[in-house]
């Protein structure tokens, strides 16, 4: 029946509307069942007291939310996440810019490097996490062995606060920098050569060209990188879970691992749900703020 309705869809407005609804409806139904319904359920759980695996306690209003906000674990997970997000994005942007600028010069062999640098993007974060855990291993890890060969006593990476944080950062930079490179490269290659020609004629040097032409024109690409990488970094789970499990002493605990632990280890579904919603709201506010901040002035 749907097909016969769609066949008749002609140029008139009403049948176009029907066609649009019919085309999008199956996906919307699936989304409603797999996103909307669970989220509403979670919202309900977040305002009820939960006891162990049971979720049918009494109505407690915003108590779960207040408990989460007041818990020191949540606060330290929040600060760890914010620190992780900002450092990882800055490092990725610096490396990403350096590599993309070089690749954009189209020197011989850059095609090969481009394929090579895409690989980490396709790899499961779990595998990357395990690879780095083996590389960073205290006793038999190759990183510490190489360090000791050149006379440096490597730290106990996973046993020390900054060692563990550095390991998580490096593993994540390995996974995500390729994305930054690809986006910057795509945006750079669409910039017009004429502008650069004109700037060179005016006697601008490489640094001036970069800061006055390249950077401003790449603003939309940078915005996109920030928004995508920000929400990715906010949800980081696999790498941390595999590498450090939030330790030592909660020093690498991030929001996702905190929510996971309080829900599935601490078995407090109410607080887990409440924490999820708090994280969701934070990401929405930050993304919205970024859009406002970095969008070109004319369409504000």
């Amino acid at each position: 029946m749907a097909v016969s309705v769609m066949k008749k869809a002609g140029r008139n407005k009403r049948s176009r509307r029907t066609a649009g609804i019919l085309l999008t409806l199956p996906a919307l139904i699936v989304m409603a069942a797999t996103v909307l319904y669970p989220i509403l359920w979670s919202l309900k759980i977040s305002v009820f007291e939960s006891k162990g695996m049971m979720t049918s306690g009494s109505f407690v209003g915003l108590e779960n939310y207040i408990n989460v906000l007041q818990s020191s674990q949540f606060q330290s997970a929040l600060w760890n996440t914010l620190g992780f997000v900002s450092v990882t994005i800055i490092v990725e942007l610096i490396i990403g810019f350096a590599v993309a600028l070089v690749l954009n010069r189209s020197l011989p062999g850059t095609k090969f490097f481009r394929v090579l640098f895409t690989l980490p993007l396709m790899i499961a974060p779990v595998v990357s996490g395990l690879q780095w855990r083996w590389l960073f291993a205290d006793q038999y890890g190759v990183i510490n062995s190489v360090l000791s060969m050149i006379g440096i006593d490597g730290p106990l990476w996973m046993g020390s606060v900054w060692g563990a944080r550095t390991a998580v950062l490096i593993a994540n930079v390995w996974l995500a920098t390729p994305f930054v490179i690809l986006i910057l490269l795509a945006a750079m290659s669409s910039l017009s050569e004429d502008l650069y020609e004109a700037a060179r004629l005016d006697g601008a040097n490489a640094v001036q060209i970069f800061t006055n032409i390249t950077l401003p024109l790449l603003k939309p690409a940078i915005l996109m990188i920030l928004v995508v990488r920000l929400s990715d970094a906010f949800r980081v789970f696999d790498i941390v879970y595999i590498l450090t499990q939030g330790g030592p002493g909660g020093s690498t605990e991030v929001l996702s691992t905190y929510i996971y632990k309080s829900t599935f280890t601490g078995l407090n579904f109410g607080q887990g749900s409440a924490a999820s919603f708090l994280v969701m709201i934070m990401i929405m506010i930050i993304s919205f703020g970024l859009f406002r901040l970095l969008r070109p002035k004319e369409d504000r």
Partner: protein
Amino acid sequence: MMKSFKLSNILSYFILIAMSAFVIFPFLWTFLTSIKTEIQMFSVPPVWIPDPVTTQHYSDIIDEGQFQAFMKNSLTVSGVSTLISMLVSIPAAYGFAKYRYKFSGLLFATVVAIRMFPPIVMGVPFFLMMRQLGLIDTNLALIITYLPLQLTLIIWILEGFFRQIPNEIEEAAEIDGLGTFGKFLKIAVPLSMPAIGVASIFSFLAAWNEFMFALTLTRTDASQTMPIGIAGYVTTFQTFWGKMSATGILYIIPVIIFTIFAQKGMIKGLTAGATKE
């Protein structure tokens, strides 16, 4: 002039080679570990070139049979969920791109916004839902769970491609008597085949690489996927670096081959948003 040109080339290649070393080293070390004996694996200073080379870890994981179970679960879950997602979301992407109705813009924005949510937000309700449906530790639980992840991804990638199809082509098709359904099947889909290919690869990869939901929804090798299986070799209680490495290599080789062959399309798919107006 000539000299500074050369200097900048040397600097460029230095950056490229440093980055390559950073990217390749973890892969290389995992591969080397997978063909080393236990003694060489733990020797100090490290053994760089394995001698003798052993395939022990590979035959171990295959003999134990768990590898096949993880592989079967991963293929089933990723394949079936991708298939369902594609069937549902290709028409949806076309609908959002070419047809307007009340709230269609808002609905599309919502679909895109859902991509930004941290998946852990869905962890609690999915677990409760699957427990109530009695689906914990089944492939079906993961298939259902992966649908929203894939739908939002596919719709996001394909909407842009469908929007680029010139309206003139569609109008010509209408004059030839094609309705919505005909235009979709005979014009939009064939023209977007490369993009659809890219979207399906990414959708498959999203399921193939997923860890967190699999961790909460699976219990035994009746439903555990590769990421869970691999992580299981290295826990607080046991560390089988050899088996982990061998499994990891077998798990990522298809992905690497795919990336090399389909890299042009994949880069296009990844960067679609950056060049979108």
